[in-house]
């Protein structure tokens, strides 16, 4: 027993050694590893008191840990190389600041509250644009998808306008709205309108007519049909449109804010550029990335919830 315990303790140390190279967020993995080891130890003690140790579960476990850490190896190495080249002076901070100074800048901005103000303003802008353009796209898509004569009346016009890239409108938009808030909202709204419109339209058109017929024979009213059959049937397509729109929304926001802004992440970065604060510029870029990722995670979450009946999303 004692010899077994010592071996197990050695193993704990090995796991520790292995995990030492991992970033600190792997604390949970470590705890898990220890728990698993403890369990394994007990199994040995009870089942095979005198047989040689069965290494297999531990090796399997280490394999799993290694597999999960492997994808992080290259990014980690890159960051380390980047940090080293900055520290050793190979990389001018005018080109790229050291990762640690980016973290410092982000920390300072967060502490002063400046960061949150800008994030709030940018996110608010993006979401308001999405609400206006996306809402309009949803309503028009529902209408043209459900009512034939409205499709005939509107769809070809919308398809024609769709071919104009939103960013091509910038000169016109500046003439119309100046460089005020409404110009940015307009650009975002125009850009997010089309993906949601088209996907809503097609979603409605692709609802199984058999289900609609069934609903009619089971006495559903028009509104009941719409709410219980047509809308849920179109939902997966509408959500695809939403995800497209979310991607576009950030791109357009970045361009619009870079052209001119008195607040927001774009303002933060352009202002920092004036003063050669590359670290703050990088914070801004990373913020855009984080917001984009957050929006995508949110949209995925919606899909997971609303389409939980769908075998493809389970």
């Amino acid at each position, binding site marked *: 027993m004692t010899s077994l315990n010592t071996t197990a303790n050695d193993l704990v140390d090995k796991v520790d050694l292995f995990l030492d190279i991992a970033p600190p967020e792997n604390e949970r993995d470590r705890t898990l590893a220890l728990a698993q080891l403890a369990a394994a130890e007990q199994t040995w003690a009870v089942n095979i008191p005198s047989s040689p140790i069965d290494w297999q579960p531990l090796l399997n476990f280490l394999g799993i840990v290694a597999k999960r850490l492997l994808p992080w190896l290259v990014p980690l190495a890159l960051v380390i190389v980047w940090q080293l080249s900055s520290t050793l002076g190979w990389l001018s901070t005018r080109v790229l600041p050291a990762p640690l100074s980016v973290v410092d800048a982000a920390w300072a901005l967060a502490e002063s509250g400046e960061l949150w103000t800008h994030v709030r303003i940018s996110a608010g802008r993006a979401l308001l644009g999405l609400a206006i353009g996306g809402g309009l796209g949803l309503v028009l898509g529902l209408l043209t998808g459900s009512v034939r004569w409205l499709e005939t009346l509107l769809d070809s016009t919308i398809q024609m306008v769709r071919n104009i890239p939103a960013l091509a409108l910038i000169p016109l938009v500046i003439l119309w709205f100046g460089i005020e808030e409404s110009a940015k909202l307009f650009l975002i709204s125009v850009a997010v309108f089309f993906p949601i419109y088209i996907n809503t339209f097609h979603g409605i058109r692709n609802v199984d007519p058999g289900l609609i017929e069934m*609903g009619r024979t*089971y006495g559903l009213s028009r509104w009941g049909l719409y709410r219980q059959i047509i809308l*849920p*049937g179109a939902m997966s397509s509408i959500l695809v449109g939403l995800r497209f729109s979310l991607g576009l929304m950030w791109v357009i926001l970045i361009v619009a804010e870079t052209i001119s802004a008195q607040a927001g992440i774009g303002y933060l970065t352009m202002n920092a550029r004036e003063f050669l604060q590359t670290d703050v510029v990088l914070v801004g870029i990373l913020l855009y990335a984080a917001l984009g990722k957050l929006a995508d995670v949110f949209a995925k979450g919606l899909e997971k919830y609303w389409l939980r*009946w*769908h075998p493809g999303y389970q």
Partner: protein
Amino acid sequence: MTEHNTSTGQGGVRVQARSLGKSYGQRRVLQGTELVIEPGEFVAIVGRSGCGKSTLLRLVAGLEPATQGDLLLDGQTVKGLNEHTRIMFQEARLLPWRRVLDNVALGLPESGQAAAAKVLEQVGLGDRQKEWPARLSGGQRQRVALARALVHNPQLLLLDEPLGALDALTRIEMHELIENLWKANGFTALLVTHDVQEAVALADRVILIEDGAIALDERIDLPRPRSRGDARFAAIEKRILDRVLQREDPEPSVDTSWITTPASGLRWAI
């Protein structure tokens, strides 16, 4: 059909077709159909595909208007959908985004959940209430569809080849289930099928439709539940099947006269 007096539903409805016809443009699908189905009767309609049997069912359901003649339910002309008529389709047509129980309760008020659960119990799926339809087998889906139809206590149940896609064993189970629920509820049932055995197993009368007209109307007087191994069952099934396939000689006898005919005198169906 007073033998079904154990009825818990609202009883059956009388269906009457008077020189009923339906055309799609120039194409006549159904013409001059005369048919009476008594309340509580179980009638099966057989025929080759495209003979107009499903069209007749859709006319009775009120899904499509007739182009000629009248269709009466208890003396009332059918004008559109009827709340006492329910259909089971070829496919289950469950809403994939609603759980099984909510599918059965479709079109019911909030208070209908208890009734839905009870009917689901009757079709043997009481323990699958919270399941998504995607997780059910084909037979289970059709059971849910049956429960969804029966929870409304229909006076007329229309079955549009609902078992066509199921395997043979599941189909036999479903026959028993449908027969028992029909006996218990006393509704009029109209089954469209291409399976003559299914028709003989379930129906009081088997009707054959050919080229848009009724070609055969045969009462099946076998006692229920019917056994497929029974000689009389087999004889009836064969007779109807021969008629469907339009075999000339209904009495099975060995005809040897053709042997003396030269090959040029034969017509080959190749």
